[in-house]
């Protein structure tokens, strides 16, 4: 008889706990009434940003911010990255695809009100060319930028460069205000020191200006009052917050703390109830394994047989299971949807894997798999993926030890080419398959795997042929040949093209994924 009475306080306590848990979304950020114009937009993403100086940025978050702060000569509409459209300028090219003439749009101004001239364009691009250590520097390698008149600029290349307009749409090549940047240390001769200035304020013509930058917690943008383009922003203030855990992004989104969550994984978006919009598309990014070909780093295992062993030793369907909505198997270094991509990916072949492993001279050593553990790509966490790779490789007799590290720590080892065995990702910088040529020997990503041009001259030649084609059809064939050769003899094992799930509350629209700059913040507007 007494039992119900004793249960009552417990039930009340449990109810109170549940109620508290329900409140724990928090409301620390300013979410305002988003149905009115103005107000604040809050975006959660896992930061990958080193600076807001477009001349130095080269990371996904960095590109997204640069896209909001600066404008480029060429633009894309929405998520369509196959057709470049005029941005700050319209252009014409010659038949050899070596000379491009850009004509600036009239009446466009920087955030301080001054007009954008050919001098600004020439300075911006030459500044990056001058900074040999700047990450986007390679985008402009071999190009000559010249002023023709006050509103015309010509860009010439020694070799045919069909992809030039697509390259120029990269936010890293945003046009800066030459006068302001020069006053603050900017120069084109390589002695440029304007980065610290550009980390404090912006000097561009984009729809937003930089308010504050904190590389570890948040970037705050405010509306550019002098903006003269056609992408008038709907929000006065944008807060981009560093939320490294996708689970936290989900809680923030559900709790109304944020309006856009960039990195939810497949499991999480499936659980979202009504009131949220999810867009799942395959991203342009590829998650791959890298096997170093430099004897200094990988020792006796510096050969491509070991990568073949791993390529055929993996069960890709089981890996895809971890990646969730929107993701597909990577059929090669060129992801599906890009020119020259292979139709079929590798399927598991344990006999072939064991043969290749024997040929590689593998002798029971433990391979150390290095990967970033705090940076989900398209919602794919690297730690479970690495654990599954480890378990699968154990079946062909390859012992793997996992060595996770924070992104910021591990990036240096990856970029510096000191990883013997790594799990990384590659995202396109401009929407063209030429973007994946850096996997070739002696090129950017190839060198990170210690693979220099002399290691495989045939693939190096294929890459060079694809890069210098002037005819679109011939170029596609070159890309296909390159992708096939990489799957045969390359030091990379492409794994997954993760789906990109951008989840928003129903109160906002226009958050469209673009493989170059993630999301164009200016296109996000209140719904209705």
């Amino acid at each position: 008889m007494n039992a119900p009475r004793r249960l009552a306080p417990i039930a009340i306590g449990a109810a109170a706990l549940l109620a508290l848990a329900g409140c724990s979304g928090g409301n620390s950020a300013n979410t305002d009434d988003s149905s009115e114009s103005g107000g604040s937009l809050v975006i959660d993403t896992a930061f990958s940003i080193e600076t807001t100086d477009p001349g130095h940025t080269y990371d996904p978050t960095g590109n997204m911010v640069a896209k909001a702060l600066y404008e480029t000569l060429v633009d894309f509409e929405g998520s369509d990255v196959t057709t470049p459209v005029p941005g700050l300028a319209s252009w014409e090219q010659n038949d050899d695809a070596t000379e491009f003439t850009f004509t600036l749009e009239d009446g466009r101004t920087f955030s301080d009100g001054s007009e954008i001239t050919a001098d600004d364009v020439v300075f911006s691009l030459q500044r990056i060319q001058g900074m040999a250590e700047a990450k986007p520097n390679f985008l402009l390698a071999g190009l000559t930028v010249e002023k023709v008149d006050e509103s015309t600029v010509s860009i010439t290349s020694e070799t045919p460069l069909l992809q030039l307009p697509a390259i120029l749409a990269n936010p890293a090549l945003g046009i800066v205000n030459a006068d302001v940047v020069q006053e603050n240390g900017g120069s084109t001769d390589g002695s440029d020191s304007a980065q610290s200035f550009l980390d404090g304020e912006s000097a561009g013509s984009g729809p937003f200006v930089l308010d504050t930058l904190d590389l570890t917690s948040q970037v705050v943008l405010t509306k550019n009052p002098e903006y003269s383009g056609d992408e008038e922003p709907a929000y006065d203030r944008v807060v981009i917050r560093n939320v490294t855990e996708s689970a936290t992004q989900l809680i923030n989104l559900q709790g109304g703390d944020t309006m856009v969550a960039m990195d939810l994984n497949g499991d999480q978006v499936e659980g979202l109830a009504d009131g949220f919009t999810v867009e799942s598309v395959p991203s342009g990014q590829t998650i791959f394994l890298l096997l170093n070909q430099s004897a200094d780093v990988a020792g006796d295992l510096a050969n491509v047989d070991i990568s073949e062993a791993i390529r055929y030793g993996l069960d890709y369907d089981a890996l895809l299971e971890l990646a969730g909505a929107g993701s597909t198997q990577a059929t090669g270094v060129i992801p599906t949807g890009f020119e020259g991509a292979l139709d079929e990916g590798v399927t598991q072949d344990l006999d072939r894997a064991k043969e290749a492993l024997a040929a590689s001279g593998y002798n029971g050593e433990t391979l150390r798999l290095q990967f970033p553990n705090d940076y989900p790509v398209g919602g794919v966490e690297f730690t479970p993926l690495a654990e599954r790779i480890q378990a699968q490789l154990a079946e062909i007799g390859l012992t793997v030890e996992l060595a996770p590290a924070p992104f910021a720590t591990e990036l240096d080892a990856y970029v510096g080419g000191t990883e013997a065995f790594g799990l990384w990702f590659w995202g396109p910088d401009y929407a063209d398959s030429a973007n994946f040529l850096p996997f070739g020997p002696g090129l950017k990503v190839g060198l990170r795997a210690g693979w220099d041009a002399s290691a495989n001259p045939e693939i190096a030649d294929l890459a060079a042929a694809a890069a210098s084609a002037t005819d679109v059809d011939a170029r596609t064939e070159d890309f296909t040949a390159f992708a096939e050769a990489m799957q045969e003899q390359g030091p990379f094992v492409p794994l997954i093209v993760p789906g990109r799930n951008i989840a928003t509350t129903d109160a906002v629209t226009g958050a469209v994924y673009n493989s170059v700059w993630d999301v164009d913040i200016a296109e996000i507007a209140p719904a209705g």
Partner: protein
Amino acid sequence: MSAERRGDALAAAGWRTRMRWPRAWRSPLGIVGSVIALAWVIVAFTASWWVPFEPNAQVLPRLQEPGIDTLLGTDGTGRDIFSRLMTGATVTIPLALMLVVAAMVIGTVVGAVAGYFGRWVDETLMRLTDLVMAFPTVILAMVIAASLGPSLFNAVIAAIVVSWPQYARVTRSLVLGLRGQNYVIAGRLLGHSPLRSLTVDILPNIIGPVLVLATLDIGAAILLLSGLSFLGLGAQPPTAEWGSMISSAIQNFDAWWLGVFPGLAILTVVAAFNFLGDALRDVLDPTAEVSKENQADRAASATGTPA
């Protein structure tokens, strides 16, 4: 019951303590703590033989709820949580015991030497101890683990470095009190070396409090190790360890069973060792035992005439 106890009290005191558990062991918390701690220790040394699945085998469907096939559900890569939880005990508990013993030995030696020799030896060692104690424990452990490189072994080293000073402090104060005792002085006059004096005359008198401290510290050591693993500085994937299991549970926040069970494991084992330490303190503290006996006797006699 009171008559029985009264009868016991009337019996020879020495006989009773030999035949029965000391009163402190019979306290409910002492019993609960001992049983749980013993159960975990047994699990820790036998789990690898009887868990239903290999802890790293990804053979089950992903994210299954707790049920009949998988007692505590499966995690995001299809591993059995129950097997991982039990295997986690084989990782954490022996290491925690080992690190407490190591910290106890180091701290006791430092404290005994400082207390016995005094003067500049005391000053030097104790200022060093203060130096380590001045840092917040977890932060210092993080710094050490991060600089040595993340691994379970380095986490243990880091934990030893931050836990020895409390033993040094306690031991020194005990030795300071004991070295002026007549029997210690007499031993010195008989020509005992400092080593013999410390081990024969002093050690038996300080071992009790130090053991109590060590038992209470096991819980803290398990928390510290799990905490470092949670932060990614201890056990590396795919090792089944409670802290790293909780850490990876964050990736699948909706699957409550991923984090709750490792959390409960930590809770029970830490609480158990704390109860055990409390009971041990009561047992090994003769004054506490005597005063409790007196109290009980007085209550039992119910004469209401305290001395």
